[in-house]
């Protein structure tokens, strides 16, 4: 039964995309994932509108002071099991904006991150690669373990 659940979770990761202070470069690459050239629906990935429906939170951009609380709230609203993927150099560490007066830094200052995908912006192929690596790492580890180490 557990392996059936694990199989289902791996084949149907629904994502929620949240921009917490990005320049839009990573966002348009994330939206490009749904378009015919990359088509992540093949992997069962669906873009969901509500945090309650999603399994994976794709965050882009630095965490600004203004968005920090909202990001935390969205993360809390997602039901378990949930994962966070930080897309782009800004989400990983703050990027070029590190040290600015309203920037807290990368996403892991606010929520635990399961996978970091660097790039400015990362190409859609890199994002797919990162998500697939995250899924296969889940397969080899226990289903309930939620680590904040990178995939």
């Amino acid at each position, binding site marked *: 039964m557990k392996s059936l659940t694990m*199989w289902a979770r791996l*084949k149907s990761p629904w994502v929620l995309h949240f921009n917490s202070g990005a320049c839009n470069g990573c966002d348009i690459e994330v939206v490009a994932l749904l378009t015919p050239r990359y088509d992540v*629906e*093949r992997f069962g990935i669906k873009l969901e*509108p509500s945090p*309650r*429906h999603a399994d994976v939170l794709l965050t882009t951009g630095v965490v600004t002071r203004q968005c920090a609380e909202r990001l935390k709230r969205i993360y809390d609203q997602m039901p378990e099991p949930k994962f966070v993927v930080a897309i782009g150099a800004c989400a990983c560490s703050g990027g070029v904006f590190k040290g600015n007066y309203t920037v807290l830094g990368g996403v892991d200052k606010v929520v635990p991150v399961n996978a970091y995908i660097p790039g400015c912006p990362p190409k859609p192929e890199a994002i797919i690669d990162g998500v697939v690596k995250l899924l296969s790492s889940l397969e080899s580890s226990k289903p309930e373990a939620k680590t904040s180490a990178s995939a």
Partner: protein
Amino acid sequence: MIKRVIDFWLFFRVLVFPGFTFILFFTLFCDWVERKIEARMQNRVGPAVAGPAGILQPLADLIKLLSKEEIVPTNAKKRFFRITPVLAFSIMVFAICFLPIDGSSAISSSGFAGDLIFVMALVTIANFLLFVSGWASSNPYGAIGASRVLTQFLGYDIPLFLLALTPAFLAGNLALSVIALSQYKFIPFIILTPWAFVLFIITLQAELEKDPFDIPHAESEVVGGLETEYGGGRLAFLHLTRDVQIVLGAALVVTFFLGGPYGPVFFGFPEFWYSLWFVLKVLGVVVLTEYITCLFARLRIDQVLTANWRILLPLSIVSLALTIAMVTWVYPLVI
């Protein structure tokens, strides 16, 4: 001893085939067909990894949702929040059980005179429960989505019912099995009243909340609509309710206009052939509705209401009058 055998057969028909299990898996299959068509129309591939050609994708979605954490918001009306998704789903499945699937309905010889009205009433009750589920989530988006569902299905129920009366009139009976059977003996009603078929398909698009009438699910306006606060298993049931409703709508079209499950029997026992024809015809209608979905943009709510009250309702009355006129005066001369 004999009584126990009869009971076993009843359970098998209700729970496995052509009852609950068959309906569930057929719904999941139709969901896969819809997603593939939508993807192909959009120049994409669609689900491809879960199972061969992605056919297990809806099943994976269902199991994943059932295995997620259950969250009930603090402000929600808890009892309604918990019950309405499962209840809506059960009522829809119950409604399908009245349709002839393999020659007779799931609860065999349960069809009664007037069960057409009963089935339509069940659909209305299930939609109303969906509205209650949106209202119970105490979320502004849920409330807006719920009110849109209510406005839409209440409005479109009327032309739907009027158009459903057309085949009843042609068959001279309000029982679904009789309507289907009379087409077998005579001719599928789509040929006799094509105008009713076309109008019924359009009204069905609105009842099923599909493009161009899918405003209750307009993500860009109401986030998740009535489903916004639901997650996990309850969301699975809300999705299933919607999918089963699509199968039910297609099955109604098949029963009313395309001759139900009845078709040529080549060899062997008829139940197999009837089920096969049923599956093929329902799939045909599902493909047709999905095709229409992909072609159009979404209408605004005031345009949806205008389309209903000013266009479809008068047209359905005209269609009924036309049918009566044709049957009374024209067809007896020709046929």
